[in-house]
């Protein structure tokens, strides 16, 4: 799947859970930069992403997520 399509799906997931779109989808984006994306909403976002791409993360994958770029590449490796 194209990086752009993946990013677009992630954006939709974020918007649906956080109820806003005050963020820009670039590779260096981290959860800290996005209002409302904290340790507690994180797991709901992860679950939604799993559903959207029909993949399953491992806990180890989760620990490696540092920013949007790494999220996209982890998803890509699972498709």
């Amino acid at each position, binding site marked *: 799947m194209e990086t752009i399509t993946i990013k677009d799906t992630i954006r939709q997931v974020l918007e649906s859970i956080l*109820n806003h779109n005050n963020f820009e989808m670039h590779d260096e984006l981290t959860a800290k930069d996005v*209002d*409302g*994306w*904290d*340790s*507690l*909403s994180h*797991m*709901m976002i*992860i*679950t939604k992403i799993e559903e959207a791409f029909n993949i399953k*993360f491992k*806990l*180890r994958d*989760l*620990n*490696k997520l540092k920013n949007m770029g790494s999220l996209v590449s982890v998803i890509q490796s699972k498709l």
Partner: protein
Amino acid sequence: MILLVSSIIFYAYADYRFLILLVLSIIINYYLGLKIRKAEKEVLQRRFLYLGLIFNIGLLIYFKYFNFFYESFVKVLNVFSADLSYNSLQILLPLGISFFTFQTLGYLIDVYNEEIEPSKNLLEFSLFVSYFPKILSGPIERASKMMPQIKEKRNFSYDVFVDGLRQILWGLFAKVVIAENCADFVDLIFDNYTDYSGSVLLIGATFYAIQLYADFSGYSNMAIGVSKLFGIQLMRNFATPFFSKNISDFWRKWHISLTTWMLDYVFTPLSFTLRKYQKTGLIISIVFTFVLVGFWHGANWTFVFYGLLHGIYFIPLVYYGKLNSSKTTAENNLIPSFKNSIKMVSLFMIIVLTDVFFRVDTVFLGFQYLQGIFSKSLFYSPEIIMGNTTYITFALVLFFLFIEWINKEKSHDFDIRNYKLVVRWTCYTFVFVLTLIFGKTSETFIYFQF
């Protein structure tokens, strides 16, 4: 190397009997770290990790929780009329065990998760575990932050050194002036709580919340400050938690090294496993994590209950989806808005009332105390106890909170480096003189028992 030797001497001086235990823990964890990385198959890696978990948690359970489980077990049997008597074992609690064990646990998990490389130098690893400013009472450090600092050659920095001194002064003030003066009231009121009216009990509980904070944040500031003198930056442990607007804000700022530890190693894996249950899974994870936070403090139902209450306070936040409001209260303003003040004060009162369970010996006594507060006598004007000292302590506490308030967005509570020279030195002298006049010596810190 010098730091390592002095750390060992420091620990031995505090309690030489447990030195063997500390050394054993260091060596075993060091080798397990290497073994996990060397093992090629994931199954084998996991086996070494489990071995480490069992060893570390086993130590904790044996030294800290054995009697608790043993007594509870016998009590349960007695309910079924087994009629057993029990003799608690005389197990001494090794100093700092909850702190250094959590550090080594985190280390092994990080190695397993390939977050960090295992240490290949036993001396460096020993210093990571036993570094003296933090071994007795934290902060609970992470290998990823601390190991690189141990490895690198440290250069002397005047600014860091002075900032360390500043932090030590503030920590000392918090501990010997604020915590100790509050303690006198707290002890008097809690020990004779049936003699006082509800209003006095409420003041007692408030002083206790402040004592607990001043005691532990004072210790943390001193530990971090001392460490700065040696050029090692430890993590921040408190970020003016009383100025939070909701409970999740509060826990982001209270005992940060423990809560982030719990977040990474308990909450995240747990909520990950329960993620398909959505909000219910989230709530179960939060409540469980907080019960564990409570239980970490000691083998007593009061701590479990304290944790349980805090976990429960999160439930409305999960349902209203308002978990995140990390913006500082009254950012860049001296005066908070009316709405924020209400939030801040109500949260503070919740903390004050919950902290009662932290102080008392049994959950039942905690409820008795709360019942004492919420009686008709809450509206009586409080009896004067201890005369003028009351007003002095009150003024000191206000001064303490005021300084913390103006520094709430700084790197620590007494980060006044950007003020003019005259202002800075007036502050130093003032705090120093206050410490000399009102300071009281104390044998221990509340958190040394944990």
